């Protein structure tokens, strides 16, 4: 599938030959043209000394090198990190300035927990579709190895006062208020601010609520490792990943893992809840360092740069659940976002060739699918006539997902979008070769802290 050669001026509609990629509102399509990430590393391993800016710059430079964008002024770059130092207020712009891109390339930061880089893909695609941008780079990064450590609030207030103090006496008075207990740093925590429960503890509650078995979770985990390993072996990631700091594959990947090995692991979450604890280190994502980027552009920009559009970013839907009042589980928002997204586009789960459900925990995936398959949930919570539908295993996370690759929070959406866009492109090309011109679609669904969920619809170009 070659891109349209039509050159559009900003704001005009540009026809495309993508086989009818949906463009609600009549806007012109925005395409995924490529992607690049660094191999993801388990925390405190290969990237132990690397900062968010280091990792994001590395991922960006790999993307620039692969697509010949050295010295190029990109319309805009958007990325973000979940665990962020206050000095990184312009993280993305700083990464751009350190990269081989033209220094006049603008940038902005986004932070939407684990949905960060999917949100950058959505926001930048929308700008392209509106004609505000011709090209863009979306991305995200996180490192738990270099996470910011905050000082105790009382010490912080004293230090701020110390800076403001004008006389030695005032400084002494401020210093005299410091107590040994104030010197204990606040370690970064993955707890929800409003509930004090960690993400794993929240998911454990949802897992128990939906009665998800240990074996169902371990199966998801094994499949994730096997599929990611197969994709690496097949060279699928050769044009999606740039080695960094000696790491050439995702450090968390265990190609040889088995159900037996996973069954031997002790539960780590939900141990103080009634009933069997089922969530282990094997079916939960580990703390991970990594960065991802996605190259986006209009058909015209792609043609000018000799790039082949992989997939159009068709539409997106965001949702949130009220986990504070116990209405729904923390990570269940995509369960509501996806039905709305598909309904707006006149689609059902059966119309999707590929479904990516971010594996925050194996249980998150199983809970999501179980809710969609539930007749009662479909009627009572989704307002449907019955169950929303089911996802065939061979369409779900076909190249593995976060359980195997690891989950550097803000980088995960970018990893998924680049992976699935390339797969869409390959499938469409194969179908066309067989004379089949049907649309090939993918769904990307990411749950996030704060009870958020973001889903995006992509269609092969």
């Amino acid at each position, binding site marked *: 599938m070659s891109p349209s050669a039509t050159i559009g001026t900003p704001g005009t509609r540009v026809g495309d030959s993508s086989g009818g990629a949906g463009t609600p509102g009549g806007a012109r399509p925005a395409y995924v043209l490529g992607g690049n990430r660094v191999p993801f590393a388990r925390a405190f391993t290969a990237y132990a000394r690397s900062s968010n800016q280091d990792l994001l710059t590395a991922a960006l430079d790999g993307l620039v090198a692969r697509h010949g964008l050295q010295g190029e002024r990109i319309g805009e770059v958007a990325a973000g990190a979940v665990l962020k130092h206050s000095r990184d207020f312009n993280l993305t712009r700083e990464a751009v300035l350190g990269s081989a891109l033209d220094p006049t390339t603008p940038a902005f930061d986004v932070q939407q927990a684990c949905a960060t880089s999917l949100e950058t893909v959505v926001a930048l695609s929308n700008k392209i579709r509106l004609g505000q941008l011709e090209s863009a780079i979306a991305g995200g990064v996180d490192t738990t190895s270099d996470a910011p450590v905050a000082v105790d609030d009382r010490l912080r207030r004293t230090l701020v006062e110390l800076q403001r103090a004008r006389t030695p006496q005032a400084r002494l008075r401020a210093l005299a208020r410091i107590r040994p207990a104030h010197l204990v740093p606040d370690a970064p925590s993955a707890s929800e601010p*409003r*509930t004090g429960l960690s993400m794993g503890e929240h998911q454990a*509650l949802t897992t128990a609520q939906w009665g998800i078995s240990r074996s169902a979770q371990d199966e998801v985990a094994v499949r994730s490792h096997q599929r990611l390993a197969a994709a690496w072996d097949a060279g699928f990631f050769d044009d999606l990943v740039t080695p960094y700091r000696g790491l050439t594959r995702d450090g968390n990947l265990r190609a040889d893992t088995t159900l037996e090995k996973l069954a031997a692991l002790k539960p780590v979450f939900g141990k103080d809840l009634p009933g069997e604890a089922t969530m282990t280190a094997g079916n939960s994502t580990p703390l991970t360092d990594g960065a991802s980027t996605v190259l986006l552009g209009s058909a015209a920009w792609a043609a000018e740069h000799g790039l082949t559009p992989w997939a159009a970013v068709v539409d997106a839907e965001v949702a949130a659940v009220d986990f504070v009042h116990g209405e729904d589980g923390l990570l269940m928002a995509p369960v509501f976002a996806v039905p709305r997204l598909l309904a707006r586009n006149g689609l059902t789960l059966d119309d999707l060739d590929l479904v990516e459900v971010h594996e925050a925990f194996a249980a998150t995936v199983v809970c999501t699918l179980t809710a969609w398959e539930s007749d009662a949930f479909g009627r009572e919570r989704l307002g449907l006539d019955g169950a929303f539908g089911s996802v065939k295993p061979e369409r779900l996370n076909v190249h593995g997902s976060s359980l195997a690759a690891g989950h550097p929070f803000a980088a995960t959406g970018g990893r998924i979008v680049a992976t699935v866009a390339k797969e869409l492109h390959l499938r469409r090309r194969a179908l066309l070769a067989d004379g089949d011109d049907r649309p090939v679609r993918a769904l990307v669904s990411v749950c996030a802290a704060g009870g958020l969920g973001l889903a995006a619809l992509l269609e092969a170009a």
Partner: protein
Amino acid sequence: MVGARAALVAPAREEHLPSVPALGTLYRAALTGAARRALGRGLPTRGRAATGSAPTLPEAALPAIALRVTDVRADARRLTDYQHLVGEPASDTLPPGYVHVLAFPVAMAVMARPDFPLPLLGLVHLANHVEQRRPLDVGDALDVRAWARDLRPHPKGTAVDLVAEVSVAGEVAWTGVSTYLARGGQGIDPSAGGHGRDPGPASVPHDQAPSPDSTGDPGTRTALWRLPADEGRRYAAVSGDANPIHLSRATARALGQPRAIAHGMDTAARALALVGRARGAAFTWGAAFGSPVRLPSTVAVAVRRSADGDGGAQGWVVDGRDARSGRHHVTVRIVPQA
């Protein structure tokens, strides 16, 4: 509600205080009072000297006076610290628990009077029932009245209600009834009870605020409170309520607790904050306290909707229990008013 308010009529005699009394002074006065009682075998033990036949506990035993302070205003900085600690949004509207913080010292002044029959220190906060008729703002000039009512026997000692009433521009905006228990030996002889009276917090007027139910299914856990060892001091700093029972192991031991315990209004305020804006502008809320939260502690919390027949009207129930043992600490019930 008319009947309930009738039950909360303030004594006719009223004494104006020039300003809100400092709690530190009151606690110090209470400490000397406690020493005096211990030496002189004062009022609290008088019941024990009586014969086995139970004496009644007339209202006359309580000071028949209401204390009043006008033009009470919230300090914006202290309010902010309070909101940050308990997890309330830092708006200019006073959180429901903060109105208690402002009004409480006046109630304390009633309890610290020499003619108050129970020893102030060591009193256990059993329950709290509040009617908030309209939101109060940081700039409002509050008129606070407080008095004691309903001295009564309790299976574990003697209970009493302290009523605090907050008005703005002559209109009552907030009424709180706090129920305290003086444990057996410290208070009036527990054997003096009886007379078929409903003991404990349940004897607080039911129509004034919903009575929390500390039994039954806590519901699905929705939050965890990790309360550090110095939580009592943190709450004391934002509330001004430096009751020694919350401050340190040593001061708590002196009052019969093995460790410092969390302030009941701290946990109640956190529960109120979890329900948040769903409380509405006018609402009643009640808190019932079970076993004290010995610090440090992790409290497993469950927020759930309460429906008709679920212990009362439609609203919210927040249940806090020890995360490990499951022992009940606090239940807060909130009912938005139409």
